[in-house]
């Protein structure tokens, strides 16, 4: 049996996808990236071996910010290309706008006729990324997914600062002033959503199918809030967090 492997080493988590000859996923798994991408790549290799797949014997492409740390990959391809390919396959659509809220960066990619036409990435700062959500969740002593659930029940409050450090102190003073957790959580999500929506607005005038990929796609409230901000439906799937890895595996399958 021939397999195609895609490994997406992101700043927070590492996603692996193995596809068969028909492009069907035979296994998908995720693990924290930890301190060292090199160690993570080794853990992925061992896990693949346990599944009976030797990555050295199959076409393998690495992507994500740690992509150069995978010694057994045949090639590296950027996460932009991989996310786009993965999302196009997952949602079976060649004209799509992909919003990926990653750990350290958020990317918005627009494809046309099955190829990437344009993309934007946030700059150095972590506003509007998963990292931002994590830091704020920490201050509220909840898990990121709990923060999303809380946000769904909140309202009213807002955070004005885009910078994570300043925003964190805003959150802390909101806590100090006795604001309800739900409302603070709402403010945090609202800040991310606004930032992402502005970025998306720069790229595209509207009209395309919009999908959300990355770790936050399982958080229903974010999808809802983002839809409201962009004034259109946003599709997602639970496998969407594997979009980058699936795209990398598909690229391996294309022999590119």
């Amino acid at each position: 049996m021939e397999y195609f492997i895609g490994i997406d080493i992101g700043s927070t988590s590492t996603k692996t996808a193995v596809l068969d000859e028909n492009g069907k996923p035979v296994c998908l798994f995720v693990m924290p990236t930890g301190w060292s991408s090199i160690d993570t790549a080794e853990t992925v290799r061992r896990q693949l071996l346990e599944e009976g797949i030797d990555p050295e014997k199959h076409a393998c492409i690495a992507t994500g910010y740690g992509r150069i740390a995978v010694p057994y990959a045949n090639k590296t391809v950027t996460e932009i290309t991989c996310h786009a390919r993965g999302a196009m396959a997952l949602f079976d659509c060649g004209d799509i706008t992909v919003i990926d809220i990653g750990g350290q960066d958020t990317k918005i990619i627009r494809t046309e006729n099955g190829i990437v036409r344009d993309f934007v990435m946030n700059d150095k700062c972590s506003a509007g990324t998963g990292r931002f959500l994590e830091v704020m969740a920490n201050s509220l002593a909840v898990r990121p997914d709990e923060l999303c659930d809380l946000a769904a029940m909140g309202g009213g409050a807002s955070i004005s600062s885009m910078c994570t450090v300043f925003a964190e102190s805003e959150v802390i003073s909101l806590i100090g002033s006795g604001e309800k957790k739900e409302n603070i959580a709402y403010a945090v999500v609202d800040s991310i959503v606004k930032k992402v929506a502005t970025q998306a607005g720069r790229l595209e005038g509207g009209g395309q199918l919009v999908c959300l990929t990355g770790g936050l796609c399982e958080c229903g409230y974010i999808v809802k809030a983002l839809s409201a901000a962009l004034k259109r439906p946003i599709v997602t799937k639970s496998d969407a967090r594997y979009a980058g890895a699936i795209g990398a595996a598909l690229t391996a399958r294309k022999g590119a």
Partner: protein
Amino acid sequence: MSDYVQMWKDLGMDLETHDALCQVLPTAFGDVYLSQENRPEAMGFWDFVVSEIHGIRPSELIEAQKNGRKVFGTFCVYVPDEVVIAADGIVTGLCGGSQFWVPGGEKVLPKSTCPLIKASVGARLDRTCPFFRIADMYVGETTCDGKKKAWEILGEDVPMYIMDIPQMKREKDIEKWAQEIAAFAAVVEEQTGNKITVEKLNDAIRIINEKRKAMARVFAATKGKNLPISGKDRLLMTQIAFFDDPARCAQMCNKLADELDERNAKGVRVFPAGTKRILLSGTPLAIPNWKLHHIIETSGAAVVCEEMCTGTRYFENLVEEDKTTLEDQYMALSRRYMKNNCACFTPNTGRIDDILRLAKEYEVDGVIDVNLKFCCLYDTEGYTVEKALKDAGIPVLGIETDYTDTDAEQLRTRIEAFVEMLG
């Protein structure tokens, strides 16, 4: 580097800090430049100049000063070298392109100032660049707000003369710039003690035109499919052109162009066939800012042209020669310089036309529009640039960066993704 310590001491430089700079430069240059394969032989001249960057040209300038000549330091491609040369003066560019100088600038400037200005001010105030010590007079201009205010701070430390640049390009603005050039000429005459005559100015105009033509030849060599020189190497040539003697610069550029023509005829190239061709547009890349070129050219693409002041804006358009009165000459100079399209002007549609034209001439696959962080002018104009390119069906990537290396990996991801997008 040969022993220039005494010279640096005499210039009142901070030797200890300067040593630190001298230590990092060769490594950076080795990594970025000397690691390239199959470089044109003629690049040996520029490699040598870089290896002695704070020694060889500064000592020439000091020799010239001993013979009574004056050195003028400039910061903008709008300041006409011709006028200085006609009075037997010397021009040297002074733009800082290294993070090394930025903290020095931040001591007196707001953090939200563009790195080019911060580095330039830092290089002077920290006394770590011989060129900034040698210049007898700095010539500033009223281009962007950051520069205007920085001149006031620099002016406390060094004689400054400011040229008032128009903000629009109507006929009356061109006339005004001619008057500014005439006023500058009077200052240069006073500083140098030499009279500017029609004849001398015509000679100077010819010298600088020759330099422009020679640089244009080097650029023309990458218009075809075969790429005989890397963008990095061409950028180095441009950067050093701001510091060198113009006649020698022309001679060296012509020599390089000869070799490139020969390479093109023989099909000798430095990039494999199919390498993506990139036009860089935007803010200047002062020496030793090689960051973007290095990332692009190690990501499967080549920079085939720069629409920048360290690029086409420096050499395109010639000054009309053989005018018979100074007044006509100043007007001819103004006409040429006002053809430059800097984001300081409004409207600046000429720059959009330039970018579209260059994209075609150099058969580029995509354009990367670069903005030095906190340069509000080019940043804002980036919107118009990107829109025009998209309308023309030319892929474009907008990038904002400074002199630090902290964003190198993020930039690499974006640039690699852009190159992947080009097919």
